[in-house]
């Protein structure tokens, strides 16, 4: 402990899968500390910001994005082998993100709907979180992640402690900052009670309902919230669309989306003629 400063600089890599790059941009958005971080850590792999490359090994590897193509599925296995600590960064890496909404739809149909030549497009049937492929040591949530939490992960690795990331509902941040509850006072549907905190309760502070971009909190009782929203006169599709957001593929939210008829615009799976028993397990 007394010799923290003498520790070697940790080798940090930042790589991406299917994503918008916004989470890795968050590192560059730590303007006040970027240079100090670069001194404290060796950013050995960060192709968005540096032409110097490294194939590993990494003390910490931050992975952005969902696993969406066969190459990515192979790459992530290789990356895991090279990383002491692997941190999935953001809603895509941790929950599949926005592109995971396609997982409800028939893959071929989606490809054909977007591409004139779907045969040239290679993607997996589902866009999935990194943790479905390899062991993940920590997850940073959010679309995008919170710069403070990213910093906390780096500090905790450097200092050698567990990151202090609170497991609690967005409501706690909302009430701490003194925002009037948009759901109770204005009837705006809000996923705050079932969503992990970390954003600072941003959307309610802008008089919007939370759309769950930090994903379900521990033991999220999404079913009860959905029931309440439905009892407030909403049609099933309108309940489903609330939960079918940037973390809609996460377990608790996915269950609600499924229970309320799936996300908007879904193209149902074609049932192959040879299939014995349908997808719903009828047999």
């Amino acid at each position, binding site marked *: 402990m007394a010799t923290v400063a003498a520790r070697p600089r940790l080798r940090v890599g930042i790589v991406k899968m299917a994503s918008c790059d916004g989470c890795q941009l968050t590192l560059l958005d730590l303007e006040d500390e970027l240079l100090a971080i670069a001194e404290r850590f060796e950013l050995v792999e960060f192709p968005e910001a540096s032409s110097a490359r490294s194939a590993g090994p990494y003390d910490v590897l931050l992975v952005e994005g969902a696993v969406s193509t066969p190459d990515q599925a192979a790459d992530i296995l290789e990356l895991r082998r090279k990383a002491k600590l692997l941190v999935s960064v953001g809603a895509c890496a941790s929950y599949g993100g926005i592109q995971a909404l396609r997982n409800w739809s028939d893959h071929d149909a989606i490809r054909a709907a977007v591409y004139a030549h779907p045969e040239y497009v290679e993607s997996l049937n589902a866009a999935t979180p990194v943790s479905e492929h390899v062991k993940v040591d920590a997850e940073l949530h959010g679309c995008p992640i919170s710069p403070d939490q990213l910093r906390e992960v780096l500090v905790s690795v450097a200092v050698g402690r567990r990151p202090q990331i609170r497991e609690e509902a967005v409501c706690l941040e909302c009430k701490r900052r003194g925002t009037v509850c*948009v759901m109770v006072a204005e009837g705006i549907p809000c996923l705050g009670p079932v969503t992990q905190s970390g954003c600072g309760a941003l959307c309610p502070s802008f008089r919007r309902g939370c759309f769950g971009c930090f994903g379900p909190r521990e033991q999220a009782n999404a079913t009860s919230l959905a029931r309440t929203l439905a009892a407030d006169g909403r049609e099933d599709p309108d309940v489903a669309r609330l939960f079918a957001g940037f973390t809609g593929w996460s377990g608790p939210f996915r269950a609600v989306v499924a229970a309320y008829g799936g996300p908007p615009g879904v193209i149902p799976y074609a049932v192959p003629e040879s299939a014995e028993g349908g997808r719903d397990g009828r047999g």
Partner: protein
Amino acid sequence: MVIDERLPYAPYPAPAGTAVAAPPAPIASGGGVGPWFLARANLGVLIDLLREDGRTVIGPAVVDGAVTLAEVRSVDELPAGVGDEQVPGRYRLVQRGDRRVFDFAVGPTSPKRWTFPPVVPLNVGRRDGRAVSFEPSPIDPPRLAFLGVRACELAALGIQDRVFLGGPYTDEDYHARRRNALVVAVNCTTAASTCFCTSMGTGPEARGGYDLVLTELDEGFVIRAGSPDGADLVARMPVRGADAGQMLRAAESVGKVAAMMGDPVPTAGLHDRLLAQFDSQHWSRIAERCLSCANCTMVCPTCFCSSVTQRSDLDGDVSTSERVWDFCFTAGFAKVAGGSFRSRPRDRYRQWLTHKFATWVDQFGTFGCVGCGRCIAWCPVGIDIRAELLSIAPPLGARPEPVRPKPVAATPGFYATARIVSVRPETADVTTLTIGDVDPAFLAGEFGQFAMVAVPAFPPVPISISRFGRDTIDLTIRAAGPATAAIIGLGPRDEIGVRGPLGTSWPIERAMGHDVVIVTGGIGLAPLRPLLDGIIARRDRFETVRLFYGARTPADQLYREELRAWAARGDVEVELIVDRGTPDWTGPVGVVTHLFDQATWDGEHALAFVCGPERMMEATVETLESRGLPPDRIFVTLERHMECGIGLCGHCQTGGLFVCRDGPVFALSQLGGIFGREGM
């Protein structure tokens, strides 16, 4: 109960129907004249006077669809003609079109936000080579005036006073904020459907705890003073004596509100009825709806739980600690190294509800609920505690013994710096640190007490004191997580922050003249070592002394040389057992109770001291009871998530007890149904 006399006015009387009756509060006469009448047009004078006195006025204002509390700079900002409709899970503003400014029921925010703010800085910890220091953050609260505080909120302030100022420890930050705030109360002339202050005995009429109180009439306000400060204000305001008609109308309008509410929550016997329902299936039914989102606790004007968070620089050399609102509904709140004590939402809801209406009474002599109804209106799924309380409808049950906490002065942000004298590895993951330069309070510490130990950038951890030396203490620490790993990674001459000694101790005097049975497992021997030291130092005062010690493997035994030395004395029976034998281990293998479940001694004249994992203690207690030891002669330690160490942060609450303050050592009889029950 001790209430600091520097408060500007007498404490609010305990709500009716609770266990401890507080004496009626003497309310200052306010110059002996009154009540007065303040014309509506002159209400602004009051706000201006308060501001002239250098106070920030916190009063009702319409913000984002609700009448909430905010800084009020002029009378125009008050919610004239605005009312509200509140039902479970729903709040809407209503425009009435009249000029009344206080004709609404309480909104989402209570004065708690200012008396117990969501975030309060505690200290800045620094490390410089081997040296560490903790600089407490200054306490410098603003001068406030609360305007429009309702009777239920006054009661809540009174309850907060008991929590933060009425026990053996006081929260200095709260104290300073409270002392700096002036209270202008308003009697309720309207109630929401969610209100039930009548049941809790707190309203709708303010009964003390204010500097001024207003009752709104169409043409103005009937006004009374409750303190010299209030009387002084009245003297500077354009008031005249209220006439009989005004006084009558004021009383009638408040009385009408009381009649409207009725008595939705019969509180007679509620404490016992609730405590009898720990195992009710009803908790599971509530948990199907409950989101564990903590909105009920956050809007509650009395909930006081908190956590400490750290933020450090990149090297962990400078870290800032803050106290933040936290609640029994969050996952990490009751977590210890082995997991959460309340992992199920049903347990969290039970913890909250039984605390509010039962165990709070044991702790503070009043209910923790004032009937403001906020938790009903602001619950996103509209759970109504009044209905839940009625559904549980329980028979009478037993009450735990009252608890006598032991006073030790301490403040959560304050860590004294001490220096490590020596480091001795005990096992692969347990190390004993001998600490010098400690706060002299430690040298008067008692066997079984613990210390909060901190290094910058890590959360502080509670550590039992495993030996009291002449001018040192020993801390035996297992690397259970990063913070403990960081502490035992320190070396001689490194400094650490310590706070304590805290908690209750083994009642060694009671054991004198008795047989002593000590049963322990794993690292549980550490807090018992001072007891053994103490017994051995005065060995002739005790009858037989038996130590039964279980460990995972022979290599996991603590203090092996001392164990041999104690055994060699001949007057202490030392029996060791391990869970897993190794080839070189010829001693017994099995659980610790195996050592005496076939032995011939009986426990009729014995006192037992037990420390270890809770499951092990349960088995031990069972065996001890079968040997004739009654629950009041069996002493156990509880482990809970402890953060503040002095019963103010709420993490370690179990039933009506704060484990850090009322324990960690308890007579089994004190614990009643708590011991060994899941989800406490």
